[in-house]
């Protein structure tokens, strides 16, 4: 399962890099023809040669068959491209993809299209910043979502590939608890991913970007003030320009303004596609995390039995191998939820004593504690006393039947 996830993420990495590059390419193409959204949507067809060449790289042994299949897969992207320039550009991109794949065959699979790293975030950040600078919503929006999703993928990839490498190195070790390692690793990874997603969702609301911009403006003002000290101030000229209405800029003006209005149907399709993809991905991630946590929690108290190790959960009240100073507040919190028979019986005993508001010394024996608490002599006290001593001092500890006996008493 882990290896499949790694393989999927490696391919997703290349696809996301291509989509990010496509936002820049479609912006450039938009200078010469249709809208950038049009070129972007048609440009997504280069994912076909990307996917097909990946499949061909894996399944074909001869370079000839690989080239045949890969070149054939470029036909849809080239055929459906809206104009000649875009056909040439998409063909060029497809050829680059195929060349990279050939290099991958030679180097046994590792290319820029298949190695996810955190550095790829720089690519998304660069296109995002360019989009902000150019007031290009396509570049900003797409690269923002790509960066967001890519963080999750690259964290999973880093963790899983490191784990696979570790298990490969220690493959021959006897008694290695592979399932336990995987289970613990998945639990930690889920927790870490949850925290990361929370941080990514919450940070934009802190207004840090405003603070950074304000700091940037302050630094620029300071630099201008410093430079003004060196020479005379230039006279301030007020220029008033009347712009005829027919030459007014479109709302998303800037250096590379649209020359053709986006068709309504295309814009609607684009928005619908974005929302749908975002909704599906978010739903998959959330459901996946919840399901995984549920299964892991269910598996906590079921040992994997892959070796003869004995596993048990402990609490701070279990003093057989007590490490002083450990646990603290968290240990006491965990102890409240420990369902093991020993813990249940000891909690019941403590509650019974606490109800009498008796002060107890740590060195007191159970008999002394009960006498100090003035518990009435009788069957209930005897059962409580014996089960508490069994829970605290016996080698094997108590069973569920003992808990039931206590409840009955």
């Amino acid at each position, binding site marked *: 399962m882990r290896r499949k996830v790694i393989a999927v993420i490696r391919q997703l990495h290349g696809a996301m890099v291509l989509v990010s590059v496509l936002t820049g390419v479609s912006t450039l193409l938009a200078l010469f023809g249709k809208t950038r959204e049009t070129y972007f949507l048609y440009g997504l067809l280069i994912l076909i040669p990307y996917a097909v060449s990946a499949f061909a790289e894996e399944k074909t042994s001869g370079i000839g068959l690989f080239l045949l299949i890969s070149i054939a897969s470029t036909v849809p992207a080239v055929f459906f491209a809206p104009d000649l320039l875009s056909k040439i550009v998409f063909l060029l991109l497809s050829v680059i993809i195929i060349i990279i794949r050939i290099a991958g065959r030679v180097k046994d699979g590792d290319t820029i299209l298949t190695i996810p790293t955190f550095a790829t*975030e720089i690519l*998304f*950040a660069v296109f*995002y*910043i360019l989009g*902000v600078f150019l007031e290009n919503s396509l570049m900003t929006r797409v*690269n*923002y979502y790509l*960066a*967001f999703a890519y*963080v999750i993928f690259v964290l999973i990839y*880093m*963790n899983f590939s*490191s*784990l696979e490498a*570790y298990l490969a190195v*220690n493959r*021959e*070790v*006897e*008694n*290695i*608890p592979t399932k*336990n*390692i995987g*289970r*613990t*690793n998945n*639990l*930690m*990874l889920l927790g*870490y991913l949850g*925290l*990361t997603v929370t*941080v*990514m969702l919450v*940070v*934009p609301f802190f207004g*840090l*970007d405003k603070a*950074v*911009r304000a700091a940037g403006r302050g630094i620029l003002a300071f630099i201008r003030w410093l430079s003004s000290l060196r020479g005379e101030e230039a006279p301030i000229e007020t220029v008033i320009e009347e712009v005829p209405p027919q030459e007014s800029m479109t709302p998303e003006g800037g250096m590379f303004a649209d020359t053709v209005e986006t068709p309504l149907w295309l814009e609607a399709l684009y928005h619908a596609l974005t929302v749908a993809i975002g909704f599906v991905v978010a739903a998959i991630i959330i459901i996946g995390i919840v399901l995984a946590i549920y299964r892991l929690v269910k598996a*906590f108290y079921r040992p994997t039995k892959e*070796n*003869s*190790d*004995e*596993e*048990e*959960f*402990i*609490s701070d009240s279990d003093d057989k*191998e007590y*490490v002083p*100073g*450990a*646990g603290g507040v*968290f*240990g006491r919190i*965990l102890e409240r939820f420990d369902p093991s028979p020993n813990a249940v019986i000891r909690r019941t005993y403590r509650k019974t004593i606490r109800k009498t508001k008796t002060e107890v010394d740590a060195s007191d024996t159970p008999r002394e504690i009960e006498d100090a608490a003035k518990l009435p002599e009788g069957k209930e006290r005897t059962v409580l006393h014996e089960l508490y001593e069994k829970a605290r001092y016996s080698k094997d500890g108590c069973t569920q039947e003992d808990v039931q006996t206590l409840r009955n008493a």
Partner: protein
Amino acid sequence: MVLVIVILSVLLLYVLQRILYKKFWDKGLAIRIRFLTHSAHEGGSGTLEERLENRNFLPLPFLHAKFECGSGISFNSSENVSTSDRNYKNDIFSVLFYQRVRRRLDFEAVRRGYYPVRSADLVAGDLFYSVHMVKSFPQDTEFYIYPRLLDTSAFDQPLKKLIGEMAARNFILPDPFEFRGIREYTISDPMNTINWKASAKTGDLMVNQYNSTTTRRIVIFLNLEDETVIHHGPLHEESMRIAASLAERLLRTGFPVTLVTNGRDVETHEEFPRMDANGVTQAEEIFRVLARVDLKPEKTEFAELIRAEMKQQDFEQAGYILISPSMKKPLQEAFSELSGFASALYVTPLYNNMDSRIEEDAPFSYLRWEVKGFA
């Protein structure tokens, strides 16, 4: 800008998790290694238990437990063991928060010796396996591999002769029930032999020693000297097996045994003191001494120890068995001198191709013990 800040936050989180693991991974972490049985004879077996506890909210997906012990212990699962002059064991665990894991490993007791485990290292990593943290935990467990017990039927006649000679000598010498000395209490001593005054003075329980009607004490001399510069390790090991087997047999049949050896302790490098044993329960003490013998250091000339023994009170009433591959002339002379006063048997463990250089007219009994191998 928002994206840049988000990316930086994620990077910060990555760094934080590394710091969190580096700082807190070992809080509440403990490992205890112990041998479930304390001893076995060569060829026997034992069990080692590794117990890990993580009293911490940080789960550790992988945790290496590494320790070393002598190579005379052979673990059944050899994949996790790197063996050179020592055994370097490496086991992998995975612990969740507040979890204890116990693992038992069987092993064979291959070679005589004393095998302590004094420390264990734990190695763990963070969530992305990018950093390794190591910590040492002191341990206090040990295992003794005693010399293998041999078939001593070859000693039937020599022992019979030795004991017979002892009985004859003791009949001649006046031998009342008399006070012989004081020694430390052992569990097989009756309560009425406790000397309370001596116990009060020393702070430990002390008992009186008496000569019995017939003093049938057997002294086993174990000489671990090499005759030449060549060190014959297997011969010395066989000598210790013979000493252990004879001691066990004699104690079982009711003979008090004294062990005198010029072997040195593997840890203190001191020569072992003269050791008395009375009763089969004390055979373990002799085995333990033999397990702790280190053959490497220089040994005292054994002839000196024999002469020192001759200064003991009533030494003539004991029987003496000298186990020694070495047949040096001074040694033979000292033993001959002793055998003029007491019953004596000289046992030489030798390879097939080694010559016995015992004097033909020696006053002591002699037994050659064949050891497989070549000089």
